């Protein structure tokens, strides 16, 4: 029953998105929604490892940038079509995620978190010194002339990000509601107990870190065509890493829909502030909201809602 509703909603969203590209002609809408959806994919990906499995990743920007620069390099070297670039970025991001998965064998808790941050810094240093993709100075990327069945390339990128969002949410929902999700929750609560109760902890953690890596890297792959000028400052932006953590925390990390709610709310607030005041405010907004939620509602909006319903039912 529930499954049907979910997939109907997914299809409806994709159809609406497509209709939107055929009816709206102000490019601004597509730019804005693209940014919000990119944040959503990152948040959903982060939550698979951070929320379901309990391993905090501070290096989201690193995974994102791996996709960005895979894309830049492949485009420059071979001029490959976008779907191929996405696939390769997904593979490389997945391998990096797999590596992070093996890291969990030795590093837990705060040590794992620091290692992910350090990994992102290493990747950033490599990119800064890799002249072929622009190094520290950055590089221009041309948008392809053809935009398939769309009127312009930004509409195509918008539709692509919408498809990626739906796919990310579907994967995350599958992982959380299946037997895998129960195993991940057991790992998050107590890894030793999980292992002794028959949960293959390493295998499940590898699934979790790989899914995260694939999704984050794919989220970054279209980015060069979206901004058309890429440098390490934009690809490794602090806001990307912070949003990826803040959106799930604000929405709630325990359920698949938590990061979706968080991403939509925080994304809309940030985009509104960018238009009405200045994009400089975005980091401040996320900072303030994050502090508020962590201190007052650590379970996020979903947690607050569940508490409220429990109280209401108790009456």
């Amino acid at each position: 029953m529930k499954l049907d509703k979910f997939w109907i909603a997914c299809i409806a969203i994709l159809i609406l998105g497509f209709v939107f590209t055929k009816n709206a002609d102000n490019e601004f809408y597509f730019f804005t929604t693209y940014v919000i959806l990119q944040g959503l994919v990152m948040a959903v990906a982060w939550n698979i490892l951070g929320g379901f499995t309990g391993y905090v990743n501070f290096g989201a920007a690193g995974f994102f940038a791996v996709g960005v620069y895979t894309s830049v390099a492949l485009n420059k070297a071979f001029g490959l079509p976008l779907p191929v670039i996405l696939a390769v970025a997904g593979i490389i991001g997945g391998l990096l995620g797999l590596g992070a998965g093996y890291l969990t064998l030795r590093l837990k808790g705060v040590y794992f978190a620091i290692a992910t941050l350090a990994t992102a810094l290493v990747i950033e240093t490599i990119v800064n010194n890799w002249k072929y993709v622009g190094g520290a100075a950055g590089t221009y990327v041309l948008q392809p002339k053809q935009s398939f069945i769309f009127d312009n390339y930004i509409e195509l990128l918008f539709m692509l990000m919408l498809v990626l969002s739906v796919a990310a949410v579907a994967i995350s929902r599958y992982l959380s509601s299946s037997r895998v999700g129960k195993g991940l929750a057991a790992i998050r609560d107590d890894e030793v107990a999980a292992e002794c109760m028959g949960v293959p902890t390493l295998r499940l953690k590898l699934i979790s870190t790989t899914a995260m890596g694939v999704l984050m890297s794919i989220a970054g792959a279209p980015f060069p065509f979206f901004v058309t000028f890429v440098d390490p400052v934009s690809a490794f932006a602090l806001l990307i890493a912070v949003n990826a953590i803040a959106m799930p925390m604000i929405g709630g990390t325990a359920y698949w829909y938590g990061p979706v709610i968080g991403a939509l709310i925080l994304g809309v607030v940030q985009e509104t502030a960018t238009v009405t005041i200045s994009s400089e405010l975005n980091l401040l907004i996320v900072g303030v909201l994050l502090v508020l939620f962590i201190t007052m509602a650590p379970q996020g909006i979903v947690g607050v809602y569940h508490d409220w319903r429990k109280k209401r039912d108790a009456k």
Partner: protein
Amino acid sequence: MSERILEVTGLTKRFGGFVALDKVSLHLDEGERLGLIGPNGSGKTTMINCISGALINDEGRVQFKGADITGLKAHKRAQLGIARSFQVPKPFGSMTVLENLCIPLEFAARGRTDPGAVEDQAMEILKMIGFEDRARENSAGLTQVDMRKLELARALAAKPALLVSDEAMAGLSASEVDDILEILFKLNATGVAVIMIEHIMRAVMRYSQRIIVLDAGQKIAEGTPDEVIHDPQVERAYLGE
């Protein structure tokens, strides 16, 4: 003659330079009830960790049902039928009591459980422990004593062939101890071998067919409860010089 279910040979476990277990051997027959006692810090929990795979021993061999499982991962051992409770409770804190039991049913006992019957079976085990009214409670909110009961219930949910209970009765009232003993006797009657680690002497003495005594990482005595309790070395270990 009954079959060996567990055979531990010359097991050594070190933590850095400290030898927690020094060439300890023990065995258990199918359907047997073994007591494992010894002063605090003598290595009982470490032995359980090495049997369940939570820790890997440095030397020696662990065999289960005739197969060498030394070095095998804990989840594989759980799937083979070794279940344990934790002396310091390790509940899955984000889950309800019932959900805690579903994890071993769906993972350790997966091949032996009808997927549609997981919740019903979890509920049956809770009823057996007298815990059914707590099924929907969050496990993180339980008292220490209730967490111990949950530990035992969760281990039972793994449908073990060998159950290792690590001080499951600490803090329980006399009548609760009797209830748990009753459950463990019933479980044993269905053919499950049990290793009981317990400080409550009355309980181990009554339950065990055979007792092994550890002291400072070494096996100092082995025999029937009666033999062990009159062993001068055991008295010395417990009462000091």
